[in-house]
């Protein structure tokens, strides 16, 4: 990271006295100026009317930002594809790379690349849904191209009550804006879109097996919960699970993420899961991969997700991963299970041509796009 020299800070201060505060979080002038503009717009909009005291509010926001509080938490939302998604402390901020993978998944689904799936009545489950951003974006992208999307079914699952709160809120806000739109647009076209959004739901469930008595014993397991719903089978399984190892959390994860975003969303560590101790966790990993893929601590969710995919007779899976090494481990794991016809790895921007500076994966897998290794996709 570039050091902030006193002369650089003075220069920034001359442009605007608030910029040095923001530079502590952004590190470069261009982003700091952008953030200042967005914060100013927000502060001005917040108390328009009776109390035009936006300046103290702005100063306060900038001070928080200089401590590393994510801008998205201060402004209460993040953009995800064409959607604005509400978020706040306690829930993971949606990432742009995730939106790129989901958009690309939608376009491949539309092209029919994953075998014959009926898009009009597609059933999609998003495990570890957080703000619900994935099913909401996928709904937007799929429902507008279907003739009649009223039978499109999407379900989000998360263990965290805060996540469920945001997911439900985001679905409601989207619904409100669609209802607004339907007043001006041809209502017939929106009917299907609205009814599939109405049928989208979010449930609380634990994805990991409860091999050990955990404190979360009151939270149901995913499969029983689905059986209870009467919906045991799904076509597409998407998941952006916690995938950071405790070592990477201490070293490569940025300070703002570490300090302010929920650890349970990031690190599949022992505190997060049913495993009481590291040896127990290692035991489990050894057991699932039988030495083929050499799984690591950060990979904990993937074998479990693949088991669930089998149980739910899922036909297409999309998993987000940390990098190309994790992508390789997950792909090898998928291949070793011999139930999947094809596996692909996608980088940050799957639709852009490669720019040559990415690493190459192990084990002859097809890799698409530009940037870091970001997801693994498999289908039967």
């Amino acid at each position: 990271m570039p050091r902030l020299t006193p002369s650089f800070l003075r220069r920034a201060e001359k442009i605007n006295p608030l910029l040095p505060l923001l530079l502590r979080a952004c590190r470069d002038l261009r982003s700091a100026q952008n953030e200042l503009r967005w914060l100013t717009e927000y502060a001005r909009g917040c108390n328009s009317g009776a109390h035009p005291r936006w300046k103290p509010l702005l100063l306060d926001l900038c001070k928080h930002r200089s401590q590393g509080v994510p801008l998205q938490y201060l402004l209460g939302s993040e953009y995800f594809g064409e959607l604005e998604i509400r978020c706040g402390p306690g829930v993971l901020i949606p990432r742009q790379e995730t939106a790129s993978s989901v958009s690309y998944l939608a376009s491949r689904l539309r092209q029919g690349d994953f075998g014959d799936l009926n898009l009009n009545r597609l059933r999609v489950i998003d495990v570890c849904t957080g703000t619900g951003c994935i099913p909401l974006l996928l709904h937007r992208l799929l429902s507008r191209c279907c003739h009649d999307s009223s039978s499109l079914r999407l379900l989000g699952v998360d263990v965290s009550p805060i996540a469920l709160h945001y997911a439900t809120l985001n679905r409601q806000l989207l619904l409100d804006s669609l209802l607004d739109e339907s007043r001006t647009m041809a209502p017939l076209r929106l009917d299907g879109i609205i009814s599939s959004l109405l049928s989208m739901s979010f449930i609380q469930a634990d994805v990991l097996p409860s091999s050990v008595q955990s404190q979360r014993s009151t939270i149901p397991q995913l499969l029983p919960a689905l059986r209870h719903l009467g919906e045991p089978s799904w076509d597409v399984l998407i998941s952006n699970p916690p995938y950071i190892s405790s070592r990477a959390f201490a070293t490569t994860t940025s300070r703002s993420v570490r300090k302010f975003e929920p650890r349970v969303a990031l690190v599949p560590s022992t505190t997060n899961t049913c495993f009481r101790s590291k040896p127990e966790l290692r035991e489990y990993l050894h057991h699932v991969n039988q030495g083929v893929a050499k799984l690591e601590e950060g990979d904990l969710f993937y074998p479990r997700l693949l088991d669930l995919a089998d149980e739910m007779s899922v036909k297409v899976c999309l998993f987000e991963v940390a990098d190309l090494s994790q992508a390789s481990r997950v792909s090898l794991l998928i291949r070793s299970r011999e139930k999947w016809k094809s596996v692909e790895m996608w980088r940050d921007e799957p639709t852009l041509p490669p720019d040559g500076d990415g690493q190459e994966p192990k084990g002859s897998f097809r890799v698409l796009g530009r940037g870091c290794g970001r997801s693994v996709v498999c289908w039967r």
Partner: protein
Amino acid sequence: MFGAPWVCRRCLFCATGLMRRRNLRFQSTAASDEIVSPALLGRARSVSAEHSRLTQELAESFNTKTARRIGEISSVANAFADWEKATDSLTELHSLLADPTTDAELRSLASSDVDSAQTALRAAGSALTTALVPAHPFASLPCLIEVRPAAGGSEAALFAGELVRMYMALSNRLGWPAALLSVTHADVSTTGGGGSDDAAGALAEAVLEIKRAGAYDALRGEAGVHRVQRVPATEKNGRVHTSTATVMVLPSFPEHGTGNDEVNFEDPNSDYYVDPREVRVDIMRARGAGGQHVNTTDSAVRLTHEPTGIVVSMQDARSQHRNREKAWHILRGRLAAARREAREEEALRLRRSVVGVAKTGRNDKVRTYNYGQRRVTDHRSGFTVHDLDGVIEGGEALQRVMESVKAWLMDQEIKAMVSEEEAKK
């Protein structure tokens, strides 16, 4: 100095129906009845001569080629015939009034007819001009105005900001919806309060969108280099500085194929099509590992059109998706304008030998804002107003300058047409 002493054809703002016609005198030549440019009249005369010759030919022996040509030019020939008729009847009325032997009753009848005859002539004149001068292909579109400082350092950056606010004020006054698509502030410390969202202070670049059908036609004459002469606020010795800013006017295409058949940019055969494979997209990526490891707010998108090297960067919105849309919007405008310009350049090259046809390139100095003399002079039309504040505030004075340019542009187009016709012979 420029062109023939000529006429207020129905002015530019009337075309969009926004301004009541005022009795505007331009270079104080025309009296109340309107005259059509001599160049245009000459052209109309030769077309209608061709029309009657061909009609004669066709009567003798049928020929599809001749018939087609007649079809092409008949609207001009008809408009010219109407115009001649209107001119004749006005002349007749005038000579009746001038003749001392005309009896009183006839005289009063004639004088009551003069007004309507003049109106008819005006209408015929404008119909003739419209028939002759093909509308600019982007005429009906909304537009984007890009302003950048050129020579003169921070003074130029301040002036660029003033120009943007001038166009915003003009749009505001006319009730045209205008929005800043992107603003980049100059990194200068002399301006104080910068860093906020509007076009206040010193600019590095701004793109203003005027979302009004026909705005392109109304504003295309603004393209070029604008020059300011004044003593900058920071100048201690009271010396006058000269600085410049560049204005570009681009067509603004509807963002989605909104049933506007004229411009379909999704059709590869259309002139407005941009092949996505020729555009390199760069997205500001998070440093390091990305994904869950960082929560960057960077949403910048950069598009590079590889065949032309045109680059558009956009970072104003928090939404990367929105920045991408805006960048495509601007890229489409720039490419269409560049293609159009290339074609005009080619046409100009073909008639290089012909004198008197000037071109308005983006690099030509078009206008001077002189603060010492409180005047604004447009170098193309030669028109000067002594109401600098009125211009800078986007007032009627600015509209008057723009009308003079519009008339000059029309004159140029006619001359170009005539010379092209001549070159063919």
